[in-house]
């Protein structure tokens, strides 16, 4: 399984479109114990990614991701701007200079995203953030790649893991972000960021080219 710029473009565009389409849903998730702006914030930034689509530097997959990250950082506010911006920036750094990349490169890039998110926001696994869906999803990706499964099988498995992990955040108490202020009252509802990861993964899997 080898990837190239056009694959990254396809993934980013699918993610951006899914974010814009789910603005209301993501906002509702954040309103349960947060402040309801998560959908709005993400959508406003990825809307611009789509609008400026043709203008991004496409020297290689890494550079492309870094430009996307800069738009996200510059135009998304809230917690999500720095978090998502940092995540995409760090992934881009891993793919920089590679016209072609492997599945292992993707895992390495996503692990770098996770490290970036942790550094930026100080969160650890189990603190009810998007990390709690993202990290299990990357673990599945790594295992499925090692097992040598085909691409469609892999993306489906990743989406399933992300969905299960996102659902499982309902039992966690929020320790980060605004939801943390509610203490024990945050238990019982899923984390908005984790659920967004699951939705994005599911859409990628469903739309994955045959």
């Amino acid at each position, binding site marked *: 399984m080898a990837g190239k710029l056009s694959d990254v473009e396809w993934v980013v565009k699918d993610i951006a479109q899914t974010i814009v389409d789910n603005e209301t849903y993501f*906002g509702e998730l954040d*309103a349960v*114990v*947060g*402040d*309801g*702006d998560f959908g*709005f*914030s993400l959508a*406003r930034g990825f809307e611009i990614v789509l609008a400026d689509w043709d203008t991004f530097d496409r020297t290689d997959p890494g550079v492309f991701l870094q430009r996307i990250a800069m738009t996200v*950082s*510059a*135009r*998304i*506010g*809230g*917690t*999500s*701007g*720095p*978090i998502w*911006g940092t995540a995409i920036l760090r992934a881009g750094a891993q793919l920089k200079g590679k016209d072609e990349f492997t599945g292992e490169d993707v895992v390495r890039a996503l692990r770098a995203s996770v490290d970036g998110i942790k550094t*930026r*926001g*100080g969160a650890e696994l189990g*603190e009810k953030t998007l990390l709690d869906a993202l990290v299990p999803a990357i673990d599945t990706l790594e295992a499925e790649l090692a097992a040598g499964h085909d691409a469609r099988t892999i993306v489906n498995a990743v989406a399933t893991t992300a969905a299960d992990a996102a659902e499982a955040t309902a039992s966690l108490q929020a*320790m*980060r*972000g*605004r*939801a*943390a*202020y*509610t203490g024990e*009252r945050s238990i019982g509802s899923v984390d908005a960021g984790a659920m967004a990861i699951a939705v994005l993964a599911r859409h990628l899997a469903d739309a994955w080219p045959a």
Partner: protein
Amino acid sequence: MKKFVNDPKQFVPEMLKGIALANPDTITYVPEYNLIMRADAPNNDKVSIIQGSGSGHEPAHVMVVGPGMLDAACPGDVFAAPPSDYVYQTAKLLASDKGVLLLVNNYTGDKMAFEMAQELAEADGIKAATLFINDDVAVQDSLYTVGRRGVAGNFFVMKAVGAKAEEGAELEEVVRVGELVNSVTRTMGIALTACTPPAKGAPLFDLGDDEIEVGVGIHGEPGRRRAKMVGADEIVDELLGAVVPDLPYRPGDRVALMINGLGGTPISELYLLFGIAAQKLADMGITVARSYVGEYCTSLEMAGASLTLVKLDDEIETLLAAPASVVARIF
């Protein structure tokens, strides 16, 4: 949702445009970075004071730009921290020889945006400091969270650093008084209704006809607990009971007392609460030397109020009493 709004996405820019049109001689609006600044800033003989945060808390912070308070405010969308790039651009525009002070209400998003902006500004050779405001006693501080929130007490920090900067003080001095004021300021709030962000179009939470949210955040985050509605006397007992022991404020102390409206509560009710609180503080032997009643840091049209105490000393009292003139005004 019934609000005076055209396109909810343009809510903040259209508000900023209104501010600029209402203050053509004194205020500059920079649409590229969602920025409101003093028309005469930066001034190289004065530290520039910048505050940013989500919108929806007006008059904080865009309406306290002016001599004696902020040099600029860079708001985000409603209840969302500004993007770090806008904070950085604001710091660049306001860069002064004396330095730039970035005031931040202590929330994850704001903290990250301002830290990133400070890094970028310092890389450009701009002298910059960041000061976090965290006056909300509703949230217990803890190693595992971002810590206490910045709420209506931020007014006193902005006022004090604004006055100090106006004196021509060095950045370190301005930071010192800001930290001093923050360290003696405590706030607790209660919501009677939820609020509706324009882009969401529906209330952030549901409160029953006889329910209140005790310790609510200014973004509609739920508070310490939900309780039954009670009379104004008991409300004040609840607020003072959370605030007074926290610092603690003691008999013999001189304080500033603020009753801040969260947006939907009439000022008549705020004065009613003020009267009760001032009386109860007097009964405790605490002297209310400065009084603030009105809307300082709101949560859109939420009905509710917060109570803030600031322990005064001569230095703080002088800074709070210094003249200032900001966008929000009566005449």
